[in-house]
């Protein structure tokens, strides 16, 4: 039981790490897509921006695939319930995301300005729509999602599609777009010079400022939102279903963990400190430092949401007693052990060869270089 408990908490933390990896790495490339038409006025300028992330977007995107796989393997009930519940939104997310690989790969094949304009818009849509959906999904999860189970745990979602687009969810969606714009813009600043870099800096400033405001407003708003409290359930660390719990709802309940453990306030504080410092770093031309501070900002955002909800992962607004927690939604002990083994071996390896890939492709991308390189996007 002890071991299982520790494994469950470890996987809950690891899921956080994977989500941060997803937000930082995929979010950066999506931010570039979102601001592509702004930072690049000419086709050549846009190609410079695309070629900065060109060698890496494919690898970065695997954080998204891995995020999906890890939720499936470690928290199958979350994977099953959330993705089917958010069906139409998931389709919008996937349909916009699958245009992206084609945008990168196919854009440069023809010289026609119309062809390229189509893919520029495709990259814009596939940059901002998924980020909006990610954020909005978290916004909805914080409010609870209307779903319930039958006796053999078949889940049914009873909400409407439009209900997912409520003001708080949109605010969370915009926060995630703003952070991705900041990350994408600071990445472009690392790799570009001249006018592109100057425009990227303006985009980054807007992104970080918007993120600061949205996060603060969201934090205040969250106090009024009805949070969830686990009153009674089978002991954590024992095999269980979500059918034997008592859960209450009250405004401000998502702040209970922060009241109980004041050290958790460091997480929201990290968001403010990192983003303000990031803005200053960019102003001083320290683009790479600014990027890393943005990554810390994401860590604070995702960390604070996790801290507020613990141990909940997917609260049910229609039948709160069937809410999913890390205790009732996680995989068996044996699966968690094996997955942990693979993660411990492969994540450092991935970080190592990804760093090597960035090292190989280091340096500035210029218009001359893009024009001369027949492999460039």
């Amino acid at each position, binding site marked *: 039981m002890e071991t299982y408990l520790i494994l469950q908490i470890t996987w809950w933390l690891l899921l956080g790490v994977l989500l941060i990896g997803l937000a930082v790495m995929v979010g950066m490339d999506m931010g570039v897509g979102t601001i592509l038409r702004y930072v690049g006025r000419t086709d050549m300028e846009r190609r410079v921006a695309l070629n900065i992330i060109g060698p890496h977007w494919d*690898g970065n995107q695997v954080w998204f695939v891995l995020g999906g796989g890890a939720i499936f393997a470690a928290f199958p009930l979350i994977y099953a319930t959330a993705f089917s519940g958010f069906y139409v939104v998931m389709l919008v997310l996937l349909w916009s995301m699958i245009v992206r690989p084609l945008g990168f790969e196919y854009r440069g094949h023809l010289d026609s300005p119309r062809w390229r304009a189509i893919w520029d818009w495709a990259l814009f849509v596939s940059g901002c729509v998924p980020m909006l959906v990610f954020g909005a999904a978290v916004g909805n999860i914080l409010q609870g999602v209307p779903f319930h189970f039958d006796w*053999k745990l078949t889940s049914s979602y009873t909400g409407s599609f439009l209900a997912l687009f409520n003001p708080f969810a949109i605010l969370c969606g915009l926060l995630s777009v703003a952070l991705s714009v900041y990350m994408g813009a600071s990445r472009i600043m690392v790799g570009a010079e001249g006018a592109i870099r100057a425009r990227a800096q303006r985009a980054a400033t807007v992104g970080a400022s918007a993120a600061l405001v949205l996060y603060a407003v969201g934090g205040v708003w969250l106090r009024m939102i009805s949070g969830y409290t686990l009153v009674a359930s089978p002991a954590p660390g024992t095999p269980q*279903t979500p059918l034997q719990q008592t859960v209450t709802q009250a405004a401000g309940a998502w702040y209970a963990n922060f009241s109980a453990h004041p050290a958790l306030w460091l997480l929201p504080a990290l968001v403010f400190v990192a983003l303000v410092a990031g803005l200053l770093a960019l102003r001083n031309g320290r683009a790479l430092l600014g990027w890393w501070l943005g990554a810390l900002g994401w860590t604070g955002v995702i960390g604070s949401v996790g801290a507020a909800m613990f141990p909940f992962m997917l609260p049910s607004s229609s039948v709160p007693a069937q809410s999913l927690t890390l205790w009732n939604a996680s995989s068996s002990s044996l699966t968690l052990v094996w997955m942990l083994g693979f993660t411990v071996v492969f994540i450092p390896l991935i970080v190592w060869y990804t760093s090597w890939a960035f090292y190989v492709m280091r340096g500035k991308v210029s218009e001359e270089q893009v024009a001369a390189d027949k492999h460039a996007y």
Partner: protein
Amino acid sequence: MIDETVVLLSRWQFAATALYHYLFVPLTLGLSFILAAMETVYVTTGRPIYKQMTQFWGKLFLINFALGVATGLTMEFQFGTNWSFYSSFVGDIFGAPLAIEGLMAFFMEATFVGLMVFGWERLSRGQHLAVTYLVALGSNLSALWILIANSFMQAPSGAVFNPLTMRMELSSFAELIFSHDAQAKFVHTSIAGYVTGAIFVCGISAWYLLRNRHVELARRSFRIAALFGVLASLGVITLGDALGFVGGQAQPTKLAAMEALWKSEPGPLPFNLVAFPSQSEQTNYGEVQVPYALSLLVTHSLDGSVPGIDELEQRAEQRIRNGIPAVQALKALSSNPDDAAALATFRAHEDDLGYGFLVQRYVADPAHVTEADIARAARDTIPPVALVFWSFRVMVALGLAMLAFFVLAVLYTLRNTVERQRWFLWLAVWMIPIPFLANEAGWLVAEMGRQPWTVFGMLPTWMSASTHGVAYMAFSLAGFVLLYGIFVVVEMYLMVRAIRQGPDGPDVEAPFTPDHAPATVLPAGNRGP
């Protein structure tokens, strides 16, 4: 109770998106190794033409790869969006290989493909070669883990049902990844990808030879692909036979459907070369048979026998009867996990739980099952025979045709006479769609032959689907068809355009001397034009 239309639409959507994804994956698997082989020759000999070859085929590889990646994204999430009960019921086992695929394989493939494209000027020759090999290794490891996951659906091993969590749970990781089905299936499927890549390269090279364009590049590419292809197509057939042998033991209903074997009979069994199976009458029309052949194929003996559909239906009926108390007990355990009597009943019947689920399609309450319901559920255990029977024959016939093609291709290319055989070059061009058809047919045999189960013998397909409305499903299926339709047009356009343009830069005019070809098969008089 789940709407049958929703289940049907979910199946159509999964089949459409999986078959579509599977158009691009085999080519990635095969072409990545052919690229690695070409680049190896470049690095060891230093001849620039091999660099040009690697880059040209690499360009086509990437056009295909982009769509493989794009359509793979939706597959990773479709279990959750559309097969929600499946995902929670077997996610404890099935999710692991998918996640490991990301960790071990896809990350490697996707990270290094960026360096493969952008790294030509930044990496040393040896480093770039290593990067290309890592892409090939990554894509093949990716296939390994996906097929381990698929094999769990075909021949579940290493899992037990836990009534405390109401789902299947992992009991042995080793049994999961080393299942015989997984091994045979991985080798069979990935080698089918090599055949696909080899036919693709042969066909396009033949087209250049017919047009007298890029002749040096085309000759060499043709030769490498032909040699690669003849070995691969032999491998596919051998492993296909092994897979049939292993799979037939794990899924007797699939085997009976593949052979349209309606009645159990003692061996020796004849092989139906042609037949027109009628599911409703449970008989075949227009049979053309080869005596002894089926016994030889499926039991590897002359007089062996395998159960026919009539016998399999009777067995299923028994198991359904035995499974109903398991479902009843499980329902009691769901509301009270401490019910010891229910647990004892469940333990006595748990092996047939899946069969108990089957009959729930007709009556939700296990207490009210009638004989007619049991008979209907037993009949459901037989997959659509005509479809599986013919998909199998199409796959095998195309596989044999490709083997014959490669034998001739190797013969002609090693004697340097391939350019004189214009009919053969045209044949090579027309062969390009063949492996894709064979791959899709193979998918149909594997997945339609598994019906009515998503996890064979454990979880019926009708139960696995998410509880969406018909409108949602119609919307999503229409969206996928529209989007994927546009994608394939764009992809084909760019592919054909890139082929018409040919390799970058002027043709490398190194005279073709067969000095690096195996000298023993090159009699002096046969050196070609």
